[in-house]
């Protein structure tokens, strides 16, 4: 398009708000469509993209609601664009049906959820981390999801780039599960030159549209079918109904099991490749804190304080909430004595930790409203040490 007036990749050092880093990460990843609806604390993502996308020839549309926003990013993606939306709890709930559509139609897209206190309107401007399970199970039916949890504006940038690549690689919706503290914090963000930004191409068919016998939903060995875009002449049918390799509805149990199993397995079997986490002083730890997002920052401090007091504590910070680094927890459980899971909800990720260990899992919980300080985490580390 002739309208591009600015660089999409702002290579250099910046002081960015987390929300702005999401926007710049999207642009650097090649996102050229954003459909969204204002909601605190994610609005700054939309506001920055409203200015930046048109500058690089991309499309920003403020939709009429989050139902429309989610439908629009799926539509933009089937037309070939990398597409994103950003929201918070109430809007995230409204997006759930079409998140399932993206999973079923295998349409890559990225959803930022900046978590605030819920349920309902809850604490519109204040932090929460209580959408962890909604991210995993929020839409109906069986599906797998990939959800990243950034703990700094730099990660808001980096994980947004990664989210687009993961979405395109697996043909899935990918979630960026931030929290208000991280999204509204300003920190240094380094943006590399364009050629250093990782880019995974969406898998596209090798066959041309004229070839006979092309099956648009026939998966390769990696269980992922190549993706065809609107207007390329393939004459494809995409449906949210259970479908076969032609994309045609087949409403039987066996067809359903075959399809849903493939959709789930294409992620489950690659979970080891997708899972990411960071560790701090776990080598000789006896008590391991498992924390994510802004709470991980306090947890790191709590671990340092515990070490100063002679308690061998460590931190496991899941970067992917989903798939959860459960195998790592299982491995650590062989040599630690307890896990401590601080989170700004009344016990969500702690349930997942419990699935991978029979050791004590001690929660440090608050329903949200302020960042969790290190002290209550430290208290529970001490308690766990016994």
């Amino acid at each position: 398009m002739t309208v591009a007036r600015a660089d999409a990749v702002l290579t250099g050092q910046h002081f960015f708000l987390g929300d702005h880093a999401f926007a710049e990460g999207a642009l650097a990843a090649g996102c050229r469509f954003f459909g969204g609806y204002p909601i605190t604390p994610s609005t700054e993502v939309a506001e920055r993209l409203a200015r930046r996308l048109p500058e690089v020839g991309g499309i920003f549309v403020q939709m009429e609601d989050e139902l429309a926003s989610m439908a629009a990013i799926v539509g933009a993606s089937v037309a070939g664009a990398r597409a994103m939306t950003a929201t918070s709890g109430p809007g995230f709930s409204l997006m759930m049906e079409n998140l399932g559509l993206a999973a079923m139609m295998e349409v890559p897209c990225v959803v930022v959820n900046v978590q605030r206190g819920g349920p309902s309107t809850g604490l519109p401007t204040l932090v929460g981390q209580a959408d962890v399970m909604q991210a995993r199970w929020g839409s109906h039916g069986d599906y797998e999801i990939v959800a990243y949890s950034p703990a700094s504006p730099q990660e808001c940038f980096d994980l947004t780039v990664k989210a687009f690549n993961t979405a395109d690689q697996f043909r899935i919706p990918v979630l960026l599960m931030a929290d208000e503290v991280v999204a509204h914090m300003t920190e240094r963000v380094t943006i590399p030159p364009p050629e250093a930004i990782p880019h995974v191409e969406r898998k596209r068919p090798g066959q041309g549209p004229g070839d006979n016998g092309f099956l648009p939903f026939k998966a390769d060995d990696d269980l992922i079918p190549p993706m065809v875009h609107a207007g390329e002449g393939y004459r494809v049918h995409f449906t949210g109904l259970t479908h076969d390799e032609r994309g045609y509805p087949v409403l039987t149990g066996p067809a359903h099991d075959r399809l849903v199993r493939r959709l789930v397995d294409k992620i489950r079997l690659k979970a080891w490749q997708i899972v990411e986490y960071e560790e701090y002083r776990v080598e000789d730890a006896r008590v391991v804190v498992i924390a994510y997002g802004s709470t991980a920052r306090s947890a790191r401090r709590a671990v340092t304080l515990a070490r100063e007091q002679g308690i061998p504590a460590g931190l496991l910070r899941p970067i992917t909430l989903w798939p959860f680094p459960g195998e790592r927890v299982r491995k650590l459980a062989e040599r630690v004595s307890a896990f401590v899971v601080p989170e700004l909800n009344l016990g969500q990720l702690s349930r997942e930790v419990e699935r991978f260990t029979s050791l004590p899992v001690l929660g440090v919980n608050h329903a949200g409203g302020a960042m969790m300080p290190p002290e209550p985490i430290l208290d529970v580390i001490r308690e766990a040490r016994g």
Partner: protein
Amino acid sequence: MSTSTFIAERHPSDPLFRADRLPHIWCPGCGIGPAMHAYAQAMVESEIPLARHVCVSGIGCTGRVPGYLNMDSYHTTHGRAIPFATAIAIVKPELEVTVYSGDGDLFAIGGNHFIHAARRNVDLNVICINNFNYGMTGGQVGPTTPMGARATTAPFGNYEQPFNLPYLAAATGAVFVARWTSLHLRQLKQAFLRAMKKRGFTFVEVLAPCPVGFGRPNDIGDAMEEMTLYRERCVVDASARLDSLDIDLRDKERPITLGNFVDIERPVFDPLAMMRPAGERENHAALAGKTQEG
């Protein structure tokens, strides 16, 4: 050029319908099939290559239409066809995007999207099969069910005022608004053609029999009788006042007015409009290779 030769030249062994998906799911006498055929004919006559036509639907009996057409087609979720299609139309303005869905899908659960897409004047054609009920789920009352008509969820008769769809479409900004029935196939095809040729948000309401969901509980009898009822009551009047287009089946004297009611020009939705030089703003779809409406 006759329609069949047009197809024959481009796709010798490639019909417009997905023959391998037949038989279709619709009941005998359903009005959706004939209206789908008129749409297919219009696509062929539009002289826009089939590869550039895209059909998007929501959920319902009507929502199954794109699945039977041999084209790029998207069967989305209940009510959300319009925002899905909006994004396709703005990401690829060279495509001719049509939303084909039911009255419940477009005006109950999806009503908000309809009014906003019309307001924005998104370059979309919206075709609504209005069968006065929720056919797919077994004949429930909907936003176009006439007053007094019975439905499974209005067992004593509907007491809600239904939408006057052409009036709604015109008031919210559609640049072309028509109403026909699935009996008026020639006029219907012409209306579809006009909609395809026009840039901006167009709306065609198709009154269609649903002998199972609407005819039977309302003692209309079979599909033939329902069609006869529409034929006898229908009056073509393109200059009718939009606010007079309400349908009331109880009043035997009251006509069902058909026609192409609105055909105007308005700037088409362009998210990049403000980034273009002033003279180029109204013209971008033409630049994208689309026929400019004269």
